[in-house]
């Protein structure tokens, strides 16, 4: 069998209640039941114009539900309290450093929110006549111009709804390009350290996935890549900077080998924030790359989405971009929605409408605010902050790939904890008690007990120092044998560790009366 043990205990040992714990229900942090336990099934918190009771339903005989959906309603004040109380159980970037590697939890400027809510953007139907949405198309066109200029690429498909959707878009364009030449290729190569979305996307797009080995210094193994490339390989998918926080220093050679084999170079642009304004992917030999607007261009993560994943494309791939797209016409901007003329080769439609307009407005607001000079500073400060954290922690925590500079995130492993009885998981959970969100753990998979720290450029030095001081203090405690500080952690969170094993064995996925 495959042994995918990654050593994470997922069952919470039941612990006795003590004074320091069980804070929920006391003080400011009150217990909050489910809406189904507090709402009334005949109440509503919305008043309507006119009466609904006299609606004539005669047209719909046999199609009407027997009773309203069995969902409770809450008045507005109760609704506010419910959600505000729930919100207080979340950590957030607005509270403290949120160093999730690979996730780019940076400050979300509120001007972006304000602009996205202008009625001229927020109250716009996707199928209005194009003569009534010229400003919206101007936003899309300007965003496209910025993305193309920053990447050096000639084309961009805006509509992908998130990074993984962007990956699919890019791989489908590559597939279409091969097919247009009558070249049936079967395989996509991706490093072992790749984000899970890369192999998943390749499989969704109908490809087999083969892994490329990694060198001892955390980069793509060129000889392994060369050995695995061949006429069956459609593309490689490589993240750069990679998931170990390192720049693929042989990237030009990677591109050359790939192109020599007739394959395309797809780059996962999740870490574009490390190089934006300083390095253009086109100059690295990349053929297609998605850009997570919710990472590099700071549209808010919102507890798991929405994102947006525009894909920049090389000249060779541009004509396969999905519909729709914006062009300049004699009477202003036009929206190309039909696969005819110049769009005859388009790979089709990825989703119902134009993509994540709300995210376009936010991202463009962010870009215009920073400008070309500010974006360059973003990359510099992101890299500087990560290297500062790495420098301050390296004396104590072990870095798997040596002393060289990292890019926007600092990677540590578990070897420095050996013999302490404390694991990466324990260490991360103890960070919660110090007021920080844990770093990304156990990813990338190629590093045992990985701890991936991405501070981002929006952290002041004082906060970085507070963070490093806290981690060094925890590290000292671990080495001194203070295992109790870790094993039951977190102690100061709304809840202690949760029993994920029980959740998975007997799933309860909705409330039942």
């Amino acid at each position, binding site marked *: *069998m495959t042994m995918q*043990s990654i050593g994470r*205990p*997922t*069952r919470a040992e039941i612990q006795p209640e003590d004074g320091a714990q069980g804070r929920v229900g006391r003080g400011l942090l009150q217990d909050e039941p489910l809406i189904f336990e507090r709402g009334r099934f005949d109440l509503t918190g919305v008043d309507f114009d006119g009466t609904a009771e006299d609606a004539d339903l005669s047209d719909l005989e046999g199609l009407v539900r027997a009773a309203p959906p069995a969902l409770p309603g809450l008045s507005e004040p109760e609704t506010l309290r419910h959600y505000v109380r729930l919100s207080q159980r979340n950590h957030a970037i607005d509270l403290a450093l949120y160093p999730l590697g690979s996730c780019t939890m940076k400050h979300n400027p509120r001007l972006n929110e304000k602009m996205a809510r202008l009625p001229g953007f927020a109250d716009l139907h996707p199928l209005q006549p194009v003569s009534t949405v010229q400003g919206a198309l101007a936003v899309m066109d300007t965003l496209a111009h910025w993305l193309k200029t920053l990447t050096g690429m000639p084309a961009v498909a805006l509509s992908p709804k998130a990074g993984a959707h962007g990956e699919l878009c890019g791989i489908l364009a590559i597939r279409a390009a091969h097919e247009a030449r009558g070249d049936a290729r079967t395989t996509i190569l991706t490093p072992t350290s790749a984000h899970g979305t890369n192999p998943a996307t390749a499989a969704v797009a109908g490809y087999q996935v083969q892994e490329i080995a990694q060198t001892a210094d955390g980069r793509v193994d060129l000889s392994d890549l060369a050995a695995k490339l061949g006429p069956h390989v459609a593309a490689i998918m490589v993240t750069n900077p990679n998931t170990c926080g390192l720049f693929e220093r042989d990237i030009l050679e990677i591109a050359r080998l790939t192109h020599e084999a007739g394959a395309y170079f797809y780059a996962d642009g999740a870490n574009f924030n490390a190089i934006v304004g300083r390095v253009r992917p086109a100059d690295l030999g990349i053929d297609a790359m998605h850009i997570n607007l919710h990472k590099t261009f700071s549209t808010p993560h919102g507890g798991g989405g929405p994102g947006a994943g525009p894909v920049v494309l090389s000249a060779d791939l541009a004509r396969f971009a999905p519909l729709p797209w914006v062009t300049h016409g004699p009477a202003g901007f036009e929206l190309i929605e039909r696969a005819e003329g110049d769009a005859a080769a388009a790979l089709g439609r990825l989703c119902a409408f134009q993509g994540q307009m709300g995210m376009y407005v936010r991202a463009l607001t962010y870009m215009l605010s920073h400008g070309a000079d500010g974006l360059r500073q973003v990359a510099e400060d992101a890299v500087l902050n990560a290297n500062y954290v790495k420098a301050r922690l390296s004396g104590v925590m072990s870095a798997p790939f040596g002393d060289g500079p990292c890019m926007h995130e600092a990677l540590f492993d578990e070897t420095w904890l050996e013999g302490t009885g404390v694991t990466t998981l324990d260490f991360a959970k103890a960070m919660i008690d110090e007021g920080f969100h844990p770093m990304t753990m156990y990813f990338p998979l190629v590093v045992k007990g990985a701890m991936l720290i991405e501070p981002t450029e929006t952290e002041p030095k004082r906060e970085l120092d507070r963070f490093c001081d806290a981690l060094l203090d925890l590290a000292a405690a671990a080495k001194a044998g203070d295992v109790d500080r870790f094993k039951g952690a977190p102690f100061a969170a709304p809840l202690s560790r949760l029993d994920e094993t029980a*959740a*998975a*064995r007997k799933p309860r996925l909705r409330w039942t009366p």
Partner: protein
Amino acid sequence: MRFTKDHEWVELDGDTATVGITAYAAEQLGDVVFVELPTPGAKVQAGGEMAVVESVKAASDVYAPLSGEVTAANAEVSENPQTVNDAPEASGWLVKIKIADPAQIDQLMDRAAYEAFLGTL
């Protein structure tokens, strides 16, 4: 009982092999939360994917140690995946396979050899 390098065990009774994962594997995986088993009648190839054992954070393929036809799947482990942790080499068995060629089993390790192999990991 015989063992594979992929941590499956086999117990042969006539031409019927009972197959499970070893205590070492169960320990490494942590709490098993779900087991996906083949339906009786399915043909399996030695070394081919036969079942999936899942913990919260990992899904591991279990390979068929021998070729043959599945005659039974252990309903107990489907119902209570915990059984794989509690008794991996007894009531936590996964499937029974009617094997085509009993000589196949000679390719597998005995317990001493398996334990020596574990020592090298």
